């Protein structure tokens, strides 16, 4: 059976340390904007930690959650793309085809999670920072959309390895950079089509919810709510 990749994020374990954000930058060659561009709202973080304050001091609490592309099953971003640059891959990922993208940014408007980022300029790195670039991940040209890929390059690598060794992909073997880095092990990645995978079990736990579930986009990222 085909894989259907999904993620569970345990908000009870997460403490908002943003290790995932840095990991994503390192893995996916995210450009760093300068302060002027950051001030204009052009900073790119495929995964971000949203934080909201609830209540008033002293009975105030902070709610935070890492938000990345939710890889929706019925993704609002997909049907609106006029050139099929954003489409659904057979393993359930919302894939962005950078080469095909013409930059209408319609997908970005239609994403309720605001996780799509546009390359306002051709990305630049000051030498020798570009030596760090991950050769498995394309540098996106200016004028195209980009977003979290669930580290599709890591998925493919594991699948190739497993194929070479003639064995199925083991649960937990694929780890996107954010999942790998998480010190509190708040993030779990795996195959939702495998009912015994860790992510499937977490997704069916009583604490599992999905972000803006009421919109019916059927996201594949499950948030396990903080316990009481």
């Amino acid at each position, binding site marked *: 059976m085909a894989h259907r990749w999904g993620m569970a994020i345990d908000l009870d374990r997460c403490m908002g340390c943003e290790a995932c954000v840095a990991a994503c930058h390192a893995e996916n060659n995210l450009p760093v904007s300068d302060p002027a561009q950051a001030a204009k709202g052009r900073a790119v973080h495929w995964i971000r930690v949203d934080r909201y304050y609830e209540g008033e001091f002293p009975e105030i609490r902070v709610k935070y959650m890492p938000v990345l592309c939710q890889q929706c099953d019925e993704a609002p971003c997909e049907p609106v793309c006029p050139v099929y640059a954003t489409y*659904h*891959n057979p393993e359930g990922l919302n894939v962005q085809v950078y080469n095909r993208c013409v930059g209408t940014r319609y997908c970005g408007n239609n994403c309720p999670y605001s996780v799509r980022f546009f390359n306002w300029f051709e990305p630049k790195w000051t030498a020798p920072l570009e030596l760090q670039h991950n050769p498995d991940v394309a540098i996106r040209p200016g004028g195209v959309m980009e977003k979290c890929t669930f580290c599709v390059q890591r998925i493919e690598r594991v699948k190739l390895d497993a194929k070479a060794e003639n064995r199925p992909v083991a649960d937990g073997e694929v780890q996107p950079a954010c999942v790998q880095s998480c010190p509190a092990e708040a993030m779990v990645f795996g195959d939702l089509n495998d009912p015994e995978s860790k992510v499937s079990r977490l997704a069916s736990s009583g604490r599992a919810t999905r972000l803006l579930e009421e919109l019916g986009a059927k996201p594949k990222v499950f948030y396990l709510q903080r316990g009481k």
Partner: protein
Amino acid sequence: MFLTGEFSQAEATGRAIEALKAKGFGPQALDMFSTEPVELPPGVLDRPSRMSLMAVAGAVVVCLLAVVFVYYTQRSYRLNTGGMPLFSLWATGVIFYEMAVLGAIGATFVMFLWESGMLRKDHAAPRWKGAEGELALEPGRILLRVRCEPEHFAAVGECLYAAGASRVEKVQNKS
């Protein structure tokens, strides 16, 4: 061979047409020229038209072509859409509607060219500035041209004069 009469009143032209029709010159043999549209009573010089019908036909044909095209293109290279239909009438209905309208517009324009006869100029027409042996179309005047053999010239000319033509000229078939 043509015989052309010049009128200044639409009523007179109408009378001439009625008289000519009685003599066996049907609407096919008659051409009326005027700098602005002349309204004749219905039945006097009707020009039957299939423009509306063809517009509808054009709409239907182009719409169907569009459906086939979209259906083909979406299936020629099957992209995974994550459970959403590759071809959906609802999601592409607007396109079919627009293409239907485009078909109607195209058909209308083509039928305009066809029915106006502008595409088949096999005969000379009166010019604004009268050429040799030809009546000029002047503002406010109406020219009625009758296609007839020379042996009928006299009868037709009489008819035109009787209806109130101020002048009648014959034109050789030049082209």
